[in-house]
């Protein structure tokens, strides 16, 4: 099983050895290392640590750690992070020095409202492509639907990222599927990031520290998905003083409390959010109402603690738990209907510093997504349960041999447990259950190494190699049929619990190269190969909780994605403006879809309903951003194509992917009028979603049947919308209590954007007057909202 891994290890050591080579034969070198944190003790992730004299530096890792190894000398070190005052210190480096930066929070009104926590020219200087770091403070200043701040909706405003539809948090990156985004919350996979059928994400903005989206050129440290990485880190909690903040909004209310357990050593944060329409409405529903007791609500809980044992060791434990609950009761018919679903994650991490150059993190992670349905009426009961769980152990090393290199290597092991639909039905004394397998299991292993290397002043390379290996274990039933209708079974193989069934694996090289043309502009190239061992069987493409996660098996091969991208980056007016043009090409293998004529629902073996094919996507992204000044913001435009092709669908002809958007544009602006008022606005335009309509109809036994045309053969009308928001900070602020008002208007000119289109029959055949018409459903007209936020 691990033979290929051995050869990979050799490659890895050669690579590491090469990294150390530049160290040999140089003058005396010393290391400056430490952490960059906020005053309240939050780790500042991807903060810039610049050596002014060398115009070179590094960025902090996920725990705020940095390390610079330099020739003996005197240096000015400039540390900057968005929303914080830049720190400058002079260091005489004649021995190894440990220095922790504590950045002061700049008043929100004074900060540059830009997306990246970037050094002014980081855009053109480093090799990373398609990477965006979002600071939660900026996310909070943009207009939000019903005042609910949502990180995923802000991400959709970036070029190359598409939304699933009106008000939906589902996102699609460069023609990839929703399952191809690796969504991590403190390293734990979040399988379904949506509440209320996609209208809200599970990420409570008050509990989030930093968000990074990587849509192209995924570094080797990430794997298991072929499209993008969305890495979200929870806040550590204030380690200086107790703080409480919250907000009262139209949809939900939030409450967060944090503080030191042992000052400077240990802190905690506890954050909760719940919708409360059900609670407010309940007293007004008469006790004898037919549907009394029916309700919908969701809630989230985030908790995190950390403890610093010494300067070298620190332990973090964090957890997330969220549920959507939908209850329907009909007293008259005795019908009871219950659908709970949600995610739970737990992460325990240990940071250890072996030396001032070598940082290690060890993590133990558990994540779980579960969906259930139960219907009860009289003697009848139906219950369906499905889910996915995984347990992961991983270790990562950050090594900073000298200022030209930032090396990372590590290993990861994951045990996957899938519960495809488990159905139990009871009618009187009859109990029915689907025959076949109730759980599917797999082991996934990966090792990687990567180096961010400043080869020359002009050339920077981020090269990495990942090797992943996957083994499916029993129980499992493999079935093969001679025909599409699954009539004639020509093979059946049954595997017992623990049996090794199939092994997949492969190398995943990742390469990013930056070539500096001059101090203001550069060209970057990226090429990656990614493998993904899990799939989402989605009948909707709308991030519904009913979508089913399935593993790669003997029948379902792992997804493979190749991506090539090329970009030109240029900063203007002394880095006040950032501009870029990127082109990309993507090829996806082993994509799954449901075969024509599959009726979604009860299936002993859902795999038998899959067909397999390929995907292709290409496009151009333009981005112009104004970083500084009173008026800031960006314009992003994407011209893109996305295709799918399956031998068993439409006789193998290719068809547009559901989220094939020819044009996609976002304009985001923010204007800081004075210390009390900040105004912001967004405008989005997107080509309508593709959908499938019938071409004609026919009649059998007096029934009217639609003859379905090619997949995605029509487009909804174009989508466009403008939102505005104003944040007001009252002049009178209490000594401890700080508060602000957020006024927002969603869909200012009340455009009736299409949510979906359905075909409606009117009249009846018996009355000789049957007609059909197409009806377009729109969700949100103009919606004003107000939110009050407080902090003490």
């Amino acid at each position: 099983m691990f033979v290929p891994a051995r050869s990979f290890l050799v490659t890895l050591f050669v690579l590491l050895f090469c990294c150390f080579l530049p160290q040999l034969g140089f003058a005396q070198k010393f290391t400056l290392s430490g952490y960059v944190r906020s005053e309240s003790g939050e780790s500042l992730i991807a903060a810039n640590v610049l050596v002014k004299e060398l115009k070179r530096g590094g960025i902090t890792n996920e725990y705020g750690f940095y390390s610079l190894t330099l020739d003996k000398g005197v240096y000015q070190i400039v540390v900057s992070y968005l929303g914080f005052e830049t720190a400058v210190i002079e260091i005489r480096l004649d021995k190894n020095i440990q220095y922790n930066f504590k950045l002061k929070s700049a008043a929100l009104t004074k900060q540059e409202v830009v997306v990246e926590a970037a050094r002014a020219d980081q855009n053109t200087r480093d090799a990373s492509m398609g990477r965006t770091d979002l600071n939660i403070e900026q996310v909070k200043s943009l207009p939000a639907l019903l005042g609910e701040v949502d990180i995923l909706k802000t991400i959709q405003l970036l070029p190359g990222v598409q939304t699933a539809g009106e008000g939906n948090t589902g996102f699609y990156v460069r023609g990839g599927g929703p399952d191809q985004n690796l969504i991590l919350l403190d390293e734990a996979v979040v399988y379904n990031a949506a509440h209320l059928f996609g209208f809200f994400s599970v990420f409570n903005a008050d509990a989030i520290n930093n968000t990074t989206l990587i849509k192209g050129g995924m570094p080797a440290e990430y794997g298991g998905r072929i499209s993008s990485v969305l890495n979200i880190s929870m806040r550590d909690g204030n380690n200086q003083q107790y703080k409480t903040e919250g907000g009262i909004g139209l949809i939900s209310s939030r409450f967060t409390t944090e503080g030191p357990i042992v000052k400077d050593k240990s802190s905690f944060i506890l954050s909760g959010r719940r919708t409360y329409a059900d609670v407010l409405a309940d007293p007004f529903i008469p006790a004898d109402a037919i549907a009394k007791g029916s309700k919908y609500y969701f809630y989230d809980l985030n908790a995190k603690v950390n403890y610093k044992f010494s300067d070298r060791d620190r332990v973090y434990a964090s957890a997330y738990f969220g549920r959507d609950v939908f209850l329907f009761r009909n007293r008259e018919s005795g019908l009871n209907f219950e659908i709970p679903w949600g995610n739970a994650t737990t992460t325990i991490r240990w940071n250890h510093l072996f030396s001032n150059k070598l940082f290690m993190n060890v993590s133990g992670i558990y994540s779980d997504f579960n969906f259930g349905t139960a219907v009860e009426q009289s003697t009848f009961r139906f219950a369906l349960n499905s889910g996915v769980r995984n347990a992961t152990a991983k270790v990562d090393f950050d090594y900073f041999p000298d200022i030209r290199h930032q090396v990372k290597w590590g290993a990861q092991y994951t045990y996957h447990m899938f519960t495809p639909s488990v159905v139990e039905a009871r009618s009187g004394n009859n109990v029915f259950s689907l025959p076949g397998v109730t759980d599917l299991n797999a082991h996934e292993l990966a090792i990687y190494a990567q180096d961010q290397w400043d080869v020359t002043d002009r050339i920077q390379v981020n090269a990495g190699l990942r090797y992943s290996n996957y083994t499916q274990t029993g129980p499992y039933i493999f079935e093969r049929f001679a025909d599409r209708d699954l009539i004639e079974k020509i093979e059946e193989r049954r595997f017992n619990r623990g049996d090794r069934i199939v092994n997949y694996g492969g190398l995943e090289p990742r390469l990013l190269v930056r070539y500096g043309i001059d101090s203001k502009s550069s060209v970057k190239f990226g090429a990656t190969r990614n493998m993904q061992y899990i799939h989402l069987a989605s009948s909707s493409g709308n991030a519904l909780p009913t979508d089913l996660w399935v593993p790669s098996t003997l029948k379902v091969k792992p997804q493979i994605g190749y991506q090539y991208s090329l970009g030109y980056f240029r900063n203007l007016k002394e880095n006040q403006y950032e501009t870029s043009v990127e082109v990309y090409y993507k090829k996806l293998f082993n994509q799954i879809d449901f075969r024509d004529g599959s009726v979604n629902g009860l299936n002993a073996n859902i795999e038998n309903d899959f067909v397999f094919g390929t995907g292709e996507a290409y496009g151009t992204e333009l981005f112009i951003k104004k970083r500084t000044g009173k008026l800031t913001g960006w314009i992003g435009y994407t011209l893109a194509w996305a295709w799918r092709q399956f031998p068993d669908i439409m006789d193998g002809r290719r068809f547009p992917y559901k989220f094939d958007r020819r044009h996609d544009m976002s304009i985001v602006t923010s204007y800081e009028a004075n210390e009390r008022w900040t105004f912001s606005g967004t405008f989005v335009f997107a080509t309508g979603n593709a959908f499938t309509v019938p071409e004609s109809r026919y009649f059998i036994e007096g029934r009217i049947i639609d003859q379905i045309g090619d997949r995605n053969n029509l487009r909804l009308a174009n989508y466009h919308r403008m939102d505005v928001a104003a944040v007001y900070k009252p002049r009178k602020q209490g000594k401890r209590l700080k508060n602000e008002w957020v006024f927002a208007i969603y869909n200012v000119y009340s455009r009736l954007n299409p949510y979906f289109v359905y075909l409606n029959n009117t009249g009846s055949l018996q009355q000789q007057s049957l007609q059909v018409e197409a009806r377009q459903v729109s969700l949100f007209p103009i919606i004003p909202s107000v939110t009050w936020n407080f902090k003490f």
Partner: protein
Amino acid sequence: MRILLFVLVVLSISCERVIELDLPEQREYVVVHGHIEPDSFAYVSLSRNSPYFNPVDLQTVASLLVQGALVTVEEGGTIDTLRPDFNFQHFTLFNYRGTKIKGEVGKRYKLRIETSEVILEAETSIPALLPLDSLWHRTRADFVREAGQFQPTRRDSELVSLYFRYSDPPVAGNYVRAFSRRNTELQWSSDFNPIYSDDLVNGQSVDFILRRGKEAYLFADSTTFEEFGYFEVGDTIEVKWCSIDRPHYLFWLTLGAATGGSGNPFATPTVVSTNIRALKGRGLGIWGGYGTLRYQYIVR
């Protein structure tokens, strides 16, 4: 289930309007609806598909019927050339009927259709009969009393649900389509798409409700929404309980999913499966064998 969720979310805030859709150009199909039963000759009706937004009335439907086709059924070397037949009580006024081969349980039948536009072929079987154990009924008053919220009305004690008990044989892969009619009705109804597979209940004995379908096709049905699916005290109910093979089952299953509105407006619509193979042109529909058993039940 999903439609319910969407409806709840959508109704609360949405608005809708009629729009014009510019549908892609339609392809021409010949639609086959044919079956064969024990002790009956084969029946086949042929029609064309219709442009999507065309209004539908009986004249239009009649104009879609395909006449002048050469339709043959073959079994064990015997060929039956079907003859044109008119049936004014039927939705498809014009169809083709066999004169030579009568259906038999356990046999396979090949269908061939030739017109100037198409050559279509299909094959079906009449599977072994799957008898019912028993039929009985319960009144709606029984249900209301059970729920315990209201007193049953007089009407509640007149409306009944028809129950059946079926014991599935031990070997998997049994499929059934049921029909019913009552009193003087001429047409068999299969409203609510009563089809059953033993996927979940192989080898078990099960009790289910067979709902009354409205008398189909030509006759307007005045049943109110509240009384849909119920028979009445005094009805003489006939039940046709037919074993069918898997392709035949899949056709009605997918047809039910497609016409019932599977509920998710974002999903790709269900494509109705077919067992018709086109050697020339395009074909759709079903050629199916029924292993028919008939039962009578009088509601007393």
